[in-house]
């Protein structure tokens, strides 16, 4: 089994990187993680966001969880909230869609219109 001592190497490396962290323009990705969201597959969606952001070394995005927002039929859902507080709501997500949102929206600043609640609920 792994021992806590292995954390030492991770810690040293992290301390070197910590100054490079860019906290400006924090973007939040908030994934619905109530019973409805979890049952619909929210955990793989949340993990896909986290993994894709790490893979691309994006530091200015926080991935958070929230409860039920009342539109259970559209779960898994996630809100992307930019530094100005403007919100984009994505619905019926899966891991692949989450990865595309990371690339198109979070990195290139172009929301994926076809996954948004406005487009789905026409």
């Amino acid at each position, binding site marked *: 089994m792994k021992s806590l001592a292995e954390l030492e190497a*991770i810690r040293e490396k992290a301390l070197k990187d910590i100054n490079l962290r860019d906290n400006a323009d924090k973007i939040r990705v908030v994934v619905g993680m109530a*019973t409805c969201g979890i049952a619909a597959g929210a955990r793989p969606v949340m993990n896909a966001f986290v993994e894709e952001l790490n893979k691309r070394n994006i530091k200015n995005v926080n991935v958070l969880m929230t409860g039920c927002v009342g539109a259970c039929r559209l779960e898994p859902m996630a809100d992307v909230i930019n530094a100005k507080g403007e919100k984009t709501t994505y619905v019926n997500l899966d891991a692949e869609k989450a990865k595309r949102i990371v690339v198109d929206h979070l990195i290139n600043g172009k929301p994926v219109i076809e996954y948004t609640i406005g487009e789905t609920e026409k």
Partner: protein
Amino acid sequence: MRDLSLHLMDIAGNSLSAGANLIRISLEYKKELLSFKISDNGKGMEKELLDKVINPFTTSRTTRKVGMGIPLLKNSAEITGGSFSIKSEPNVGTDVEANFVTDSIDRIPVGDIDETMKALILSNTSVDFELKFINGKKEYELKTLDVKNYLNGVPIQNTEVINWIGENISGGLKEIFGGVLDEISG
């Protein structure tokens, strides 16, 4: 819910919305029973609400702790021939216990406890989690507070730290339950 790890995510969500800053989770193999417990130090519930939470149809939407999560876990345990209990005290916390009959064909698998813990820790960095796996004398324990103390300034949400935690937990699952529970290879 397809597996226990998803129930864990769901029930831990109740603890978090009850304002808990310490959540203890344990999974113990007692031969014919697999016992799953979650205890928190959140705001707890009055008896009146406690009686209601096991019934999905008395749900009050203004009270976020009430809903389908608890009845679903109760059902998952009871269809195996197991049992379910919930105890709570206002301002002290809530204990949830679900016992599954290990060999029942209806027992849902344990699932990716590591993925659930990673997600919980990542999005609730100020909350401490204690995770225990027990099989007789064999025990595995992970306390996020120990990890935080060891890291001393490096955030626990650091990617490599989170991945280390995930690997640690899946290693622990294998060591404690490998070859004992059908879904976990030894």
